[in-house]
C-alpha cells in the first residue's frame, strides 16, 4: 500500500522543502521506493535543494497536460537508490494544477509501485497548497518556534481536516508535527516558543525537532539533502524523524542546551 504524505505549513520559509527533501531521501535510504513531488509551480525549489536542477527536462505540469509521460519527467536521484523527484514547472502558475491531473499522476505513481509519495506544498492556503494536501493520507506539519508560524500551521490543519478528500469521505488525515530551526538557547532566553507550548497549542503528535543548524543552509546551497550530512545535528535529527515515522521508537534529541566543554568554551 502506498502512502501519500503532504509536507505543509501555511507560512513560507519555515523549511517545508528542506524537510521534504530530507524526509524523502531518508525514506529512500531505508529501502522504500519514494517519489517527492514539488507542488510549488512557478517557484520551484525542490530540484535545487535536491541538486537536480540541471537535469530537469519535463515537469509536473507537462505530465498533467499530457505533454510528457511520468517516466520521462521523474528524475532518479544519483546518490540514493529508490528516490525519484518530480519537479515543478518554473514557467507556469498554480492554475495549471487540476484535481483530475494531480490525481492521475498520484495514481500512476501508486501503480508504479511507489511506497511513499511525498508532496512538497507551497506556502499559503491557495490552490497550490490545496492541491498538495487534497489527496494526502498523512500530513507533516512543519512549524518554526514562532507565533505566526504556529498560527498558520493551525490554520492549515483546519483546512486539512475539512477540505481534503479524506475529510470529504469522513476520514481523518494522520497528523505529524515537525518543529524546525529549534534553538534551546533562544527558547531559554524567551525569544522562541518552547516545544511544549507548540505541542500544547497545536495538539498534534510530535514527530521530530530539527535544531537550528548552519549545515541546513550549506546543504541547500550545495544541492544535497541535509539528511546526507550525517555529521550535522540537523541531518541526524532528520534521520531520527524518518525512523520514527517508520515506526521505530527513538527518543528526541537536541532539545536541551548543549553544554560546552572546556576546550569548546576556549575555542568556540
Amino acid at each position, binding site marked *: 500500500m502506498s502512502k501519500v504524505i503532504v509536507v505543509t505549513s501555511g507560512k513560507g520559509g519555515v523549511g517545508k522543502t528542506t524537510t521534504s527533501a530530507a524526509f524523502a531521501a531518508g525514506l529512500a535510504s531505508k529501502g522504500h521506493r519514494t517519489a517527492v513531488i514539488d507542488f510549488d509551480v512557478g517557484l520551484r525549489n525542490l530540484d535545487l535543494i535536491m541538486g537536480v536542477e540541471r537535469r530537469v527536462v519535463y515537469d509536473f505540469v507537462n505530465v498533467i497536460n499530457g505533454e510528457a509521460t511520468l517516466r520521462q519527467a521523474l528524475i532518479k536521484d544519483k546518490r540514493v537508490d529508490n528516490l525519484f523527484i518530480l519537479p515543478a514547472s518554473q514557467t507556469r502558475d498554480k492554475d495549471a494544477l487540476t484535481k483530475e491531473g494531480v490525481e492521475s499522476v498520484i495514481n500512476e505513481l501508486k501503480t508504479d509501485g511507489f511506497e511513499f509519495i511525498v508532496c512538497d506544498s507551497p506556502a499559503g*492556503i491557495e490552490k497550490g497548497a490545496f492541491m498538495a494536501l487534497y489527496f494526502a493520507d498523512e500530513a507533516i506539519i512543519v512549524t518554526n518556534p514562532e507565533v505566526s508560524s504556529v*498560527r498558520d500551521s*493551525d*490554520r492549515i*490543519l*483546519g*483546512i486539512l*481536516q*475539512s*477540505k481534503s478528500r479524506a475529510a470529504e469521505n469522513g476520514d*481523518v488525515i494522520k497528523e505529524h508535527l515537525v518543529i524546525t530551526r529549534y534553538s534551546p538557547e533562544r527558547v531559554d532566553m524567551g525569544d522562541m516558543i518552547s516545544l511544549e507550548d507548540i505541542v*500544547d*497549542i497545536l*495538539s498534534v503528535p510530535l514527530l521530530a525537532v530539527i535544531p537550528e543548524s548552519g549545515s541546513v543552509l550549506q546543504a541547500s546551497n550545495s544541492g544535497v539533502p541535509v539528511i546526507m550530512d550525517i555529521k550535522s545535528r540537523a541531518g541526524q535529527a532528520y534521520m531520527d524523524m524518518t525512523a520514527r515515522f517508520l515506526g521505530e521508537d527513538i527518543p528526541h534529541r537536541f532539545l536541551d542546551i548543549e553544554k560546552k566543554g572546556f576546550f569548546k568554551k576556549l575555542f568556540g
Partner: protein
Amino acid sequence: MIATQSALELKGEMLMLNVLRLQDVDIKLIEETLQQKRNEAPLFFVQSPVVVDCSNLSQEQGKQLDLRALRRLLVRMDFVPVGLRNVSNAMLAASMTSGWNILRSSTKHPPQKALVINTPDENARVTENTSTEEQEQNEDAVSTEPVSEDQVNEAIENTSLTSRQKQGLIIERPIRSGQQIYAKRGDLIILSQTSAGSEVMADGSIHVYGPLRGRVLAGVKGNKKARIFCRSLEAELIVIAGCYQLLDESETELKGKPAMIHLEDEKLIIEPLI
C-alpha cells in the same frame, strides 16, 4: 455615507410574531381558549403582536366570523393585532371595513404539516473561511431564519422552546484557526480544543473540554439562558445572546481555569466551574 443623514432607514427585519390559527368562529369559545393559554404563561402574551390565520376556516365559517368582535377581544386581552392572513375572498370586504390589515398569504408549508426536525448533520455546519460564499451562506442561515408558525404554535403549547433544543452537536476533533462551527437549535459540545482564530457558535449552550481559545458565541439567536462551560478559559471573545466581552478586557481571575459564563441583566458573569 449619506445614509446617516437621511430621515429614515428602511430595512427588512425578522420579527417574532404569534400566529393565531382559528379552527372555530365562535368568539366566546376563542376567548375561553385564549384565556386558558394566557393563564399558563401570563407574561408571554403581554403586548405581543399577533397575526390571525384563517386558512383552516371554511368559506361558510369565514362569513360567520365577527371580525370586529375578534379585534376587540384581542386588544382587550393585551395582544397587538397585526393583521389577517389566508383570508378567503368572501371575507375580504368584511375584513377591510372592520379595520383589519390583510397580510399577503404565505405560500409556505400547509398548516397541518408536522414540525420538521432537522437531522443533526443538517444542523451541523463546519465551514472553512477560505470560501466567502460558503461563509455568507452560513451567515444567512444564522440571521435570516424566518419565524415558523409551528415554532410559535409550539411555543404557545409548551410555553417554552426546550423540546426544540434537545438536539446537540458533539465534535471530537480540534476546531482550528479559521474554522467555524455552528450548532443550529441546540447545544455544542467540543471534546477537544478550539484554536485562536476559530469561531464556535450555538443557538444553545457551548461546552468545551479542551482549552477554549477562539471566539465563542452561545445563544446566537437570542437565547439569554444559554451558557458557556469550559475546562480552560483562554477565549478571545465571549458572546452570549449578543452581549460580548473580550477576555483580555475582563478582570476575571479565571483565565486559563475552568469556568462557566452566563448572562445576568445583560452582563456576562464569569464564574469558576466546580
